[in-house]
């Protein structure tokens, strides 16, 4: 009896159930390993980027961005992301919609195809575009052909001097290819979990396809969509491999921020190179903050829902 009482007192004093907890030393070791790893591989490099970028002072840091090549690189990066991200948003929603809401032959194949850009090395995807659109590629052969089909197209391409490789279109294409999966991958599981009932309900109530999408589907997926878009954007601005292959590294013309960083670094302009790199690091920070915001908002909504249910049962 006395033992029981003391056990109760112990439980009251130590509400956690000791028996299912790991020993203290193990927790300390695990937490230090995790923190040490994060610090060494994530935080220290980030700090180094800013430290090196600011090593010659604040004014030298700012001067890096006055350089016209640097500005051109920033512009091109914004342009490439500005085209690739909205297009991938549309493709991603369309693909996720098709996969989540319809049954069709080849669905599994399409699902794995969407992941292809993750599976393929970015360099390879860049090379594919060179092969397709380069001077020795299909487009080059078409332009050089003596007797092409659609002669008007050939002369139009000549007249307008349309080039893809070593030019902005190639960079946009490569960026799109590499960032294609982000939006679709965020949406597919969510849309599959939500099912089709709400859309079907809207249809039976007489809504058109567009009304159903805008008023029912979109509000249900907006946070996942936003999340996919910021991840897609981060990758679009930071992409190196594929863009490097198709860019040709023409200064002031076909260099994006990551490519410009590499060039500066190879020319031993360490401070300038790190200053440029700090832009991408900032982008990463902003992405992380936005991502946490989205998750926080989502959690708030879930908690509000849970709270209202509890309240309801409490009042009953």
């Amino acid at each position, binding site marked *: 009896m006395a033992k029981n009482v003391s056990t109760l007192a112990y439980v009251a004093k130590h509400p956690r159930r000791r028996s299912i907890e790991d020993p203290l030393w193990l927790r300390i070791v695990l937490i230090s390993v995790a923190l040490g790893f994060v610090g060494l591989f994530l935080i220290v490099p980030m700090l180094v980027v800013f430290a090196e970028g600011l090593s010659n002072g604040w004014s030298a840091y700012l001067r890096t961005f006055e350089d016209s090549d640097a500005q051109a690189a920033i512009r091109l990066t914004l342009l490439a992301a500005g085209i690739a991200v909205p297009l991938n948003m549309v493709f991603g929603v369309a693909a996720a919609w098709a996969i989540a809401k319809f049954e069709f032959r080849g669905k599994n194949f399409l699902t794995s195809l969407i992941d292809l850009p993750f599976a393929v090395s970015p360099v390879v995807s860049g090379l594919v575009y060179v092969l397709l659109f380069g001077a020795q590629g299909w487009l080059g052969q078409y332009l050089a052909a003596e007797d092409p089909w659609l002669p008007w197209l050939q002369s139009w391409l000549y007249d307008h001097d349309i080039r893809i490789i070593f030019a902005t279109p190639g960079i946009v294409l490569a960026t799109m290819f590499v960032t294609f999966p982000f939006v679709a991958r965020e949406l597919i599981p969510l849309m599959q979990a939500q099912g089709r009932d709400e859309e079907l*309900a809207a249809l039976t109530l007489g809504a058109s396809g567009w009304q159903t999408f805008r008023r029912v589907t979109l*509000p249900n997926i907006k946070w996942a969509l936003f999340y996919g878009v910021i991840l897609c954007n981060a990758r679009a601005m930071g992409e190196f491999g594929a863009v490097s292959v198709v860019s040709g590294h023409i200064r002031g013309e076909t260099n994006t921020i990551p490519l410009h960083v590499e060039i500066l670094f190879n020319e031993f302009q360490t401070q300038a190179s790190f200053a440029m790199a700090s832009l991408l690091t900032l982008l990463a920070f902003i992405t992380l903050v936005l991502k946490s915001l989205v998750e926080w908002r989502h959690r708030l909504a879930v908690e509000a829902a849970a709270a209202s249910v509890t309240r309801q049962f409490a009042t009953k």
Partner: protein
Amino acid sequence: MSIEVRNVWKHFGEFTALAGVSLKVETGRLTALLGPSGSGKTTLLRIIAGLEFADASNDPEWGRVLFHGEDVSGVPAGKRGVGFVFQHYALFKHMTVAENVAFGLSVRGRSTRPSKKEIADRVAELLDLVQLGKFGGRLPHQLSGGQRQRVALARALAVQPKVLLLDEPFGALDAQVRKDLRRWLRSLHEKLHVTTVFVTHDQEEALELADEVVVMNQAKIEQVGEPQTVYDRPASPFVIEFLGNVNRLTAGLAKLNVPARDVLYVRPHDVDIRRTRTGEHDLQVRVLHVFSAGNYGRVTLQRVTTGEPLEAEVPRDRLRELSLQQGDEAFVVFRHVRLFPKGEFFETDVPEQATALAADSYSI
């Protein structure tokens, strides 16, 4: 508005959901599609709604859906004038209750759309009708299951459907709410008289609520009829087994032109227990279990000759009179039995004959 379905086939891959189903629902009736899961009832409802389409066929008369004699097979769901209530309500999560109900009116084209004021009035009227007048500003997740179901119903009614279709309307609710809502839906139907079809796997629900019950099994319709008819005169072994409790016994009589070893069906309330033998065909049984709750007692018996289990429902007074104990020997007489020899139907209300059909003395 009457509904007619003609020879509808539907396959999902290898699975046959509907195998040549034809059905007529008269105007203003409340009809239940009753069957176990996988019997095709929901698919039939969705085909009527235009959410699924029947398999294509070379015969133009096959796979047709007609509303009031007019072919609507090719008409999309939104233009059929049906109100559909989904099993899990499918309310628009991000919209308030009022916005949900208003949805069907607010998506109409400019020329047919009522004014904001008219929509608001109609919504208020409908919310009153479903007894949720004060809940217009709530979000669906702030409502209980029964309330959500009523919002879904109001939303479907907002577009003034000529046909109301409900898929397992009470499936996700607990027993008490189910009963209340069932009664309420019946009274709503009396008020509105919209042709209504609902799907359910609960026979009690179908029998209590519907004007007409369509019993489905394995992609086919087994029987169509009023609740009393399908319960009292089931057309097939499936129907009798699905509607209410029933005992299955081996029949053993050649004399009445019943093939030997056929299955004989007896409802528990048609089993009369006696302590002593009263006729030559009485079945000898052993008492396995006695349980009484409410007005009726349930007695589990075992037929001595074959070991077959047998359930009996006995009024409480009678049970006290019998004072049965576990292990006791007793005799039973059947008031009413049914057999389905070779797809035909045979029944008798004469107790001697009924009991004789199963009687040991005639067993082969």
